[in-house]
């Protein structure tokens, strides 16, 4: 009994987990059983929360969490001291969901008509691995170095050697595990804020660090068939079919021609494009018309998470412009291709 009490005194759990872990799992009225607590006992020496690098980083990031949790957030699953200092994977899972929620809420209410591929790219631009890695770098976070002792590296993102081909076969080309570790750290910080404070504090932190970044959504678009897409859009909206007309031109048959093409639906001009060939100008005009539609912005928007009692709901768009295309010019002409794919009874 006394031994158990002494062991319990030596336990060093961080923050919110201190009270809840044991009391829910052990029903007896006496103190903790030695066998159970022996598993959870951490190292004898105090957790090194006084390292100057760690303390300075904690102050710089300004997250409203204690230094203990911050140190845990720096510890990846593969860290060499994970058994002593804890891992950031749970915090990271929570932080990842919170990030995803608040950032998608912001983008979707701000640009309700964005196509899904652009929306995904915009989300990636704010909270993808690359984005969070650059955010961590801007906080001055350093990464683990193999040749230096671990004790001297408290305050860096600690991770071990990982074969990325096995752990993450669907990773982006050129992505290192170090990037993923840095992104996990950022998510873990946000998860820590949500646990220690509340989701409003997490939201304020996300707004200050993530949503304050600049993304020109215009630059995410890459059109392949804007004319086709625009005509489907006009049909869906009940507008007249789009027609391209030459608005102005100069320099035809010279070294530097300029054609200005406008795409009209009836008498309304939807978009305009300028290029050195008529085809390209028409392409740009249709693309600009589509951008004008997709990038429609809701001004002074109230986010659902901050809705008051008189919240009337946000604008919800009809959805994407579905353009079913079957590019018949790419169909293979050899019969062999089709013979292989016949049902068995027709083969040979």
């Amino acid at each position, binding site marked *: 009994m006394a031994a158990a009490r002494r062991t319990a005194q030596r336990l060093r759990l961080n923050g919110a987990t201190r009270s809840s872990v044991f009391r829910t799992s052990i029903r007896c009225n006496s103190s903790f059983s030695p066998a159970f607590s022996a598993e959870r006992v951490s190292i004898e020496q105090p957790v090194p929360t006084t390292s*100057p690098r760690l*303390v*300075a*980083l904690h*102050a*710089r990031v*300004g997250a409203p969490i204690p230094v203990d949790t911050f140190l845990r957030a720096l510890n990846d699953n593969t860290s060499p001291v994970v058994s002593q200092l804890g891992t950031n994977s749970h915090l990271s899972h929570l932080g990842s969901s919170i990030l995803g929620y608040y950032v998608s809420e912001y983008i979707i209410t701000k640009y309700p008509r964005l*196509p*899904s*591929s*652009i929306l995904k*790219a915009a989300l*990636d*631009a704010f909270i993808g691995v*690359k984005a969070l890695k*650059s955010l961590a*770098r*801007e*906080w*001055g976070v350093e990464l683990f170095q193999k040749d230096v002792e671990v004790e001297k590296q408290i305050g860096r993102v600690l991770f071990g050697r990982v074969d990325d081909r096995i752990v993450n076969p669907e990773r982006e080309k050129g992505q290192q595990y170090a990037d993923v570790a840095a992104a996990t750290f950022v998510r873990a910080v946000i998860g820590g804020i949500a646990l220690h404070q509340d989701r409003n504090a997490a939201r304020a932190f996300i*707004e*200050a*660090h*993530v949503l*304050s*970044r*600049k*993304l020109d959504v215009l*630059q*995410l*678009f*890459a*059109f*392949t*068939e*804007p004319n*086709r*897409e625009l005509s*489907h859009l006009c*049909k869906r909206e009940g507008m007249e079919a789009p027609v391209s007309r030459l608005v*102005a*031109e100069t320099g035809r048959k010279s070294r530097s021609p*300029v054609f*200005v093409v406008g795409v009209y639906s009836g008498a309304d001009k939807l978009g305009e494009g*300028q290029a050195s060939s008529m085809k390209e100008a028409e392409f740009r005009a249709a693309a600009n018309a*589509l951008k004008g539609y997709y990038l429609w912005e809701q001004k002074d928007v109230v986010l659902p998470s901050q809705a008051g009692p008189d919240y009337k709901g946000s604008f919800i768009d009809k959805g*994407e412009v*579905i*353009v*079913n*295309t*079957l*590019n*018949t010019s*790419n*169909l293979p002409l050899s019969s062999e291709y*089709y013979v292989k*794919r*016949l049902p068995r009874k*027709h083969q040979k």
Partner: protein
Amino acid sequence: MNCNGHITAVISWILQLFPWSTPVSTTPSSSNTRRPGGSCTCPEHLHRNCTQIWTPGKSIYEQEKSVKMPVQALKKVATSQNGVGSYILQLRKLDFGYCDWAGASRGMNEFLLRNLKQFAADHPSVEITVTPRPAHHPIIRGTYINGREKVICVRNGTPSEILEKCKLLRDQSGVKLKKIKARNVVQSTNSSVRGIWSPFHAGKLHQI
């Protein structure tokens, strides 16, 4: 929406050309019906804009990938605007080098004893280290978040002068000093508000 009519017309055209093959079903593509045979017969790499009816065994993500929308997305990362939301002090670390013997280091030694503690307390986000540099002039080495370092030699400096140098390092951003030419004085990430003049939109006088 008449896309189903369009695709049915195309499919019937294919079937006329290749009557022995049934690459796609003739049922409307909006209904999620199973295709006979259960697997798609168009390899992804041949048909860039091919539609696929839901095939058993494929995840929703894979199906979504195969319905290629004409508008594709480019990969970009949002750039930071330090100060718009939160402000991160760009100075990461200050390393003070002093010498016990050299006369030029007297002011630095006094600074370390008297002023450094207050300066460190005022700037909690700066990591401060003190390193002996025997038989050398005293220096302050500032390390910035962009990885660059700036070293200032404070030989024969008084404590107040050294404090001024610390503040100088604190106020810098770590980028290499460069001459700002007169034409680049206004720098912005936002495009021009009123647009750039174009002869094609200027009015009758300049119409080409």
